């Protein structure tokens, strides 16, 4: 059953903002136009999970969210 949908929306917005801040890269500009947002998001999520040594699932599991919520440097982890 769907649980806590409001919280999930908040988390997904948080995840999107995080990935756009730190994992936007040139790949995004050259991604095929038919890629939808979710595919791009999952790819960015995988890069983030790989960088932090998390299990690479492409899903924002609780462990991934916990890392995203840590205080950090504002410079992107990939790209210039």
């Amino acid at each position, binding site marked *: 059953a769907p649980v806590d949908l409001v919280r999930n929306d908040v988390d997904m917005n948080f995840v999107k903002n995080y990935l756009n*801040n*730190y994992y936007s890269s040139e790949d995004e500009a050259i991604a095929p136009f038919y890629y939808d947002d979710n595919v791009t998001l999952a790819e960015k999520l995988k890069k983030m999970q790989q*960088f*932090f*040594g998390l*299990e690479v699932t492409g899903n924002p599991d609780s462990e991934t969210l916990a*890392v995203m919520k*840590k*205080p*950090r*440097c*504002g*410079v*992107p*982890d990939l*790209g*210039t």
Partner: protein
Amino acid sequence: FTLTDGNPKWKRTNITYRILNYTPDMHQSDVDNAIKKALEVWSNASPLTFKRLYDGIADIMISFEVRDHRDNSPFDGPNGILAHAFQPGDNIGGDVHFDEEESWSSKGTRGYNLFIVAAHELGHSMGLSHSDDAGALMYPTYSYTEPHLFRLPQDDIDGIQAIYGKLDNPVQPTGPTTPKACDPRTTFDAVASIRGEMMFFKGRQFWRKHPQLDLELYFIALFWPNLPSRIEAAYENYEKDQLVLFKGNQYWVLNGYDIQYGYPKSIYHLGFPKTVKKIDAAFSDPESGKTYFFVGNKYWRYDEIRQTMEAGYPKNIAQTFKGVGPKIDAALQHDGYVYFFQGTKVLQFNPNSRRVQSVQRSNTWLNC
């Protein structure tokens, strides 16, 4: 380590910096000192030198900013983004901005330590990007380290020297490396169980092994900012649901995430003679409530129920634990066996037969 895309670098090694404004959270002299020390982190590992300017344009302009500060990278208020910096270059290049809405500090674990954050950001100013080495200064998330104990990790030394070359000195700096679980050379400082989990201490970090979760590596300071690194012995006190940690002639008692009030205490309170300067290893037996302490080639036995050191000790390790010692790194009782960690080997000791039953590589305990 990772270099910034395009490998930007300063064309000179004599770099200038200027502090444009101050945070009200700290004394100005503490800000000056934190920035100076943060720059020394990099100048001590490379041919770079830094000179402070008090007016005009410096290579690195350092300031505290709030929200949108007209560089296309607005800050986000307390927590989240703490600071950012720009790669080497003209104008905004090399500049460092700290989020003024953070709580900045020069000592202790309250707020964010300006020295640690500045040292990281100045790494970007020198041309380093984020490292995926969790122990590196250039790792993107904040981790507190006692500033006066800080040593630039080897990953960052390798990074800065890849850009600017080595120091003009026959003796090159070396720094701590992040332990790798499955490295065949992996050894442990101390090992203990706690509430069904296992903790393997190594340098500034420890591996946490939970039966249902993957192995995780954490900084000791992340959980217990006041504990030192390089813990020497540890055991679980089953009677009191506590973790007891030793370093030198001091010990700490932890209940969950909390260090119990009044610690560290001297090990001499436990009944050790003054000739004992440190404990090599310890384990506790939940059945008898006895704790065994190993020092050199001898061991002591402590009664957790009576809270006294037992008479008749120390004894020779070889007398009771044949085939073990004399020098033990860590000890653990698990599933009826006692495990003695010695270098890269772990000896499984059977208390019933009083013999070493098997010898394996230490990091088999880390699923390797």
